[in-house]
């Protein structure tokens, strides 16, 4: 096990390379560009492909093509680019194309403050594209986790034949910390159909992704973003084909929630105060938790690592004892909708919303919100 001092962006790139990523297409954008720079430096040396696309639409679509051609493929971007990639992401979902897309969040909307951290793309990561769909969204809180979760993202993408979003932010991306690099990383390799008759777009058990026939090996695979049957033939007319397909695609993620849902709980089981958070804010939240408990408050912290799919049961259970729930977010309130949905009806939910200027939410602000009035 090697230790390195890496920024979150570097850690993402290292994680990708460790996971066997051999294709990167991207378009520069602050604060994600260093991921691209790293891949630009490493991939040509290691026999992989790197291309700077003409825009983000091209980048995501190149990644899709590369994935079908057998590559472990990734792109990285930030808000404006992520918005442009939504249509492509929907296509990847519909065609069950494994890929990893990293969104390093900055303060939006529009161009906003390009160099300042934020967490305003959470809901977009879940819902940004049209139509019925669901994809895993993972949120690291440190460079170490950026590394680990990027690897994880590739493993999920390959196993479930799905795009996976890694939702980082500028603090993580540009902050450098000590990262433990793994020596050996095992990513499940893609299952090919046993023979050309095995359906590449259907599965009796929705939790299991169908096998993926690579291009150029005589499978004569038909890939389409239109509604298609188990063998890929377009069917834009029948209710049954459409419903079966989109239901299976959503269930593939939803019914695997136990496998996909990662979270961290710290503090007291019978906490009166709970802090619910994700991403870099969790760092302040952990200190806030310690501060609260040292003042004798029974408190806990629920940190969501997986932001989607949501494990309603877990969240409900973990929040059951809490009378006060603090939800610190570097946005104007997004995770809080889940908390409102899953918390006890009579709990007091306090939002701590702060975004812009590269100023984090400090532990003291969380403590104050937990103890005092709401903001």
């Amino acid at each position: 096990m090697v230790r390195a001092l890496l920024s979150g962006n570097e850690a993402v790139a290292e994680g990708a390379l460790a996971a066997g990523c051999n294709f990167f297409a991207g378009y520069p954008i602050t604060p994600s560009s260093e991921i691209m720079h790293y891949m630009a430096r490493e991939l040509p040396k290691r026999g992989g492909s790197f291309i700077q696309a003409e825009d983000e639409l091209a980048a995501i679509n190149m990644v899709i093509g590369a994935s079908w051609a057998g590559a472990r493929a990734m792109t990285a971007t930030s808000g404006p680019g992520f918005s442009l990639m939504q249509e492509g992401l929907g296509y990847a979902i519909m065609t069950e194309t494994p890929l990893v897309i990293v969104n390093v969040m900055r303060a939006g909307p529009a161009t906003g403050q390009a160099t300042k951290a934020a967490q305003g793309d959470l809901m977009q990561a879940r819902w940004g594209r049209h139509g019925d769909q669901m994809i895993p969204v993972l949120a690291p809180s440190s460079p170490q986790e950026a590394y680990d979760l990027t690897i994880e993202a590739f493993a999920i993408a390959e196993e479930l034949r799905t795009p996976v979003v890694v939702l980082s932010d500028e603090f993580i991306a540009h902050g450098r910390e000590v990262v433990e690099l793994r020596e050996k990383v095992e990513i499940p390799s893609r299952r090919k159909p046993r023979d050309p008759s095995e359906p590449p777009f259907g599965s009796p058990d929705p939790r299991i992704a169908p096998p993926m026939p690579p291009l150029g090996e005589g499978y004569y695979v038909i890939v389409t973003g239109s509604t298609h049957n188990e063998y890929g033939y377009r069917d834009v007319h029948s209710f049954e084909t459409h419903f079966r397909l989109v239901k299976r695609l959503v269930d593939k993620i939803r019914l695997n929630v136990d496998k996909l849902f990662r979270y961290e709980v710290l503090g007291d089981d019978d906490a009166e105060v709970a802090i619910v958070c994700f991403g870099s804010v969790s760092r302040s939240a952990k200190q806030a938790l310690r501060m609260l408990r040292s003042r004798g408050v029974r408190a806990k912290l629920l940190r969501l690592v997986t932001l989607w799919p949501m494990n309603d049961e877990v969240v409900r259970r973990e929040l059951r004892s809490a009378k006060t729930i603090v939800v610190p977010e570097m946005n104007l309130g997004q995770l809080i909708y889940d908390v409102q949905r899953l918390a006890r009806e009579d709990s007091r939910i306090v939002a701590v919303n702060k975004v812009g200027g590269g100023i984090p939410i400090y532990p003291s602000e969380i403590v104050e919100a937990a103890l005092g009035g709401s903001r």
Partner: protein
Amino acid sequence: MRSIAFLGRGGQGIVFAGEVIAETLFEQGLYVAQLQSYGAEVRGGSVLSYVVFDRDRVENPFIESFSLAIVLHEAGMRRWMKHLEGSDLVILDELVSAELRNAVKLPISRVCVEKGVLGRENVVAIGVIAASGVLDPSVVERVLSRKRGFEKNIEALKLGLELGRDVADRVAAVLRL
């Protein structure tokens, strides 16, 4: 957990200083977290760069005050005044006009002008810290050797080590884990 911050304006190598400190402490076997705040679109604006370090993983790098802060230009100060006021020790370049109860002034920029290492105020400041013994000067040298402008930097480092002798104890007191 301790922390070292550099404040200044764009072009002063503030982020570079943070990097060197972080890498040095890392090579000394500590866990570190290095953060910075600057605007890509604002050339010459205010810059903050800081390093949090500890024997274990750094729990929270988002801190509201520093163990030690070195201010090389006023531009970097205003936004972070509260942080500075709460800090254990602040070293100001003597050209920075500010009244802070916890501050000492050092003629960092003057030394640079006089000794012909203009623009290396950042490395002189690193030397000042290293004088406390918290940073191992030989490790700092090794780190600098991997970066551009090595020779001039070593000169500046030496000047800093000298300049820092007077405040070494106070620096050590706030930085020692």
